[in-house]
């Protein structure tokens, strides 16, 4: 990376980190939500963007992270940090147990096998006594939005640094090889099953941490909100809109779309949902490789970029 790019990223980070000092309460709350969504988009980026296994069920990890924190704090009176650790353990165990059979499926079969996951988890957790069944759990309140904001920002930074480090490691190259040609990767000596499960687990860890922070912040957790299906829509479109398989794309996607959706939902609530759907449809047709690719190539090609994309994929 060039020096000026690093400088730009650090400056953006400083501006974001300073929000609790100069921003309003509403802005801080919006920021927590947007940053946690960005973490989810980054988590999805690892398995969907880099490995090419589009998971439509990553919100399960988010829910498990939330329940890890909630169960540890409410049922066992343990501190928040232990709960986060417990959530991560749950997510990793789940990723390995489910990943080993399901990740054997080819890309799109995998995508659909994960589609019903959040519904299934909602049904199961509704019957688990320690998780408060379908009544839910009430966490001890901590009225400190700036803390939650900085925690979210810290988590996003760690997730992004992890991905950045990953892209320059043997592991990252292995994942990209799997995305481009799985048989080829296996022939070249990549242990594809191990790599895919590790990518799924890593993706789950960040999603679970985001879920844990969110649960403690809103101080309430029930199956429907923990395994929220619409989160899957959001994290996927944010990653795809920004640029799947890039280090910063999903963050840009998440922050842009969160901002637009916040303005829209202040008018009519359901318009925001409609907006996400339309963005998916338009993005797939006109800019399937995301904002990052569009910005890079539109400089040369102008509007021809969109026509080129349609021409490449139409019947």
């Amino acid at each position, binding site marked *: 990376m060039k020096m000026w790019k690093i400088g730009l990223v650090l400056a953006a980070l400083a501006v974001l980190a300073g929000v609790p000092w100069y921003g309003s309460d509403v802005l801080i709350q919006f920021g927590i939500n947007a940053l946690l969504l960005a973490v989810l988009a980054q988590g999805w980026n690892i398995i969907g963007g880099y490995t*090419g296994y*589009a998971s*439509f069920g990553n919100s399960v990890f988010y829910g498990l992270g939330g329940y890890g924190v909630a169960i540890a704090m409410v049922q066992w009176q343990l501190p928040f940090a232990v709960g986060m650790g417990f959530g991560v353990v749950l997510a990793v165990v789940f990723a390995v147990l489910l990943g080993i*059979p*399901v990740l*054997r*499926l*080819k*890309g*799109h*079969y995998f*995508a*659909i*096998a994960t*589609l*019903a*996951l959040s*519904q*299934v988890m909602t*049904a*199961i957790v*509704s*019957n688990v006594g320690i998780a408060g069944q379908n009544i839910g759990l009430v966490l001890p309140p901590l009225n400190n939005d700036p803390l939650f904001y900085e925690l979210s920002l810290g988590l996003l930074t760690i997730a992004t640094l992890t991905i950045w480090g990953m892209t320059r490691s043997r592991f990252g190259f292995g994942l990209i090889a799997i995305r481009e040609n799985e048989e080829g990767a296996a022939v070249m000596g990549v242990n594809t099953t191990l790599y895919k499960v590790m990518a799924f687990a890593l993706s789950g860890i960040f999603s679970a941490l985001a879920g844990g922070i969110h649960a403690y912040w809103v101080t309430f957790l029930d199956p429907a909100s923990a395994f929220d*299906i619409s989160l899957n*829509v959001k994290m*996927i*479109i944010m990653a*795809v809109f920004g640029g799947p398989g890039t280090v910063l794309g999903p963050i840009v996607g998440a922050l842009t779309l969160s901002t637009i959706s916040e303005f829209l939902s202040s008018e009519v609530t*359901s*318009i925001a*949902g*409609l907006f*996400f*759907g*339309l*963005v*998916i*449809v338009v993005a*797939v*047709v006109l800019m*399937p490789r995301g904002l990052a690719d569009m910005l890079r190539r539109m400089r040369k090609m102008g509007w021809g970029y969109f026509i080129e994309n*349609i021409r*490449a*994929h*139409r*019947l």
Partner: protein
Amino acid sequence: MDLLAQILVNGVLQGGLYAVMALGLALVWGVLNIVNLAHGAFIMLGGYASWYLYTYLHIDPFLGLPLTAVVMFALGYGIQRGLLNLVIRAPMFNTLLITFGLEVVLTYLAQLVFSADFRTINPPYAGSSLALGPLVLPVARMAAFAVAIILTVGMWLFLLHTRLGRAIRATAQNLVAARLYGVEPRHLYAMTFGLGIALAGMAGTLYGTVSQINPYIGASLTAKSFAISIIGGLENPLGVLVGGLFLGIVESLTTLYIGQTYADVASFGILVLVLIVRPGGLLGRTT
């Protein structure tokens, strides 16, 4: 024993309905290689179409089926011609994603236009049922089951014996060869998708007569249709019928022995098991 028999009958009746739901998904998937994640949303739209026809124009849902089918066919044809044909050669993930986007759009549009209230199509015979020994057979469910069987068998005959049906099967097997024999793929793809959506719409009508509809039923119906297509394979409507009956019975038994909330878990469990053991479908070809 009576209870078990009744549960099995319920499962079979429900299974016929499931088969029609999955029929359109399997057709589109097999021919166009698009897994249409908006399929359930189209089922939902079909349900609303019949609800409006019945509530405002007093057209019986079963008599209104052809009308619903025509409207939904036109919608499907337009969407394939104007939108999906633009991305059909993109990687599978892109077509998956665009239909996912369509699902979201249709769901929220439905919420805006139809409101989030639960609706049921309530013809006069909705509550009545026949008694067969100890078994209870609800009239609406019986009628829905009969229509489901007719549609499935009709679809099978259509694919085997009509010119369009043969063109569709030829395209599914080999697009290039079909093209050489004069198939116009843009039109044929749109016809196939339109047909799939018409089937989804009719399934929605049947669904609306036996259970409640709201804008959010789509996603879980897509998942069920997908599970059935996997179980039954994509080649043959009769396989889909078997898959539907199988899922219907398994769900009924799960509800009886384990609990209502686990019915969805059961279908998902079967789906994952089948995908792992036989990725080509239980009845489909092994690849």
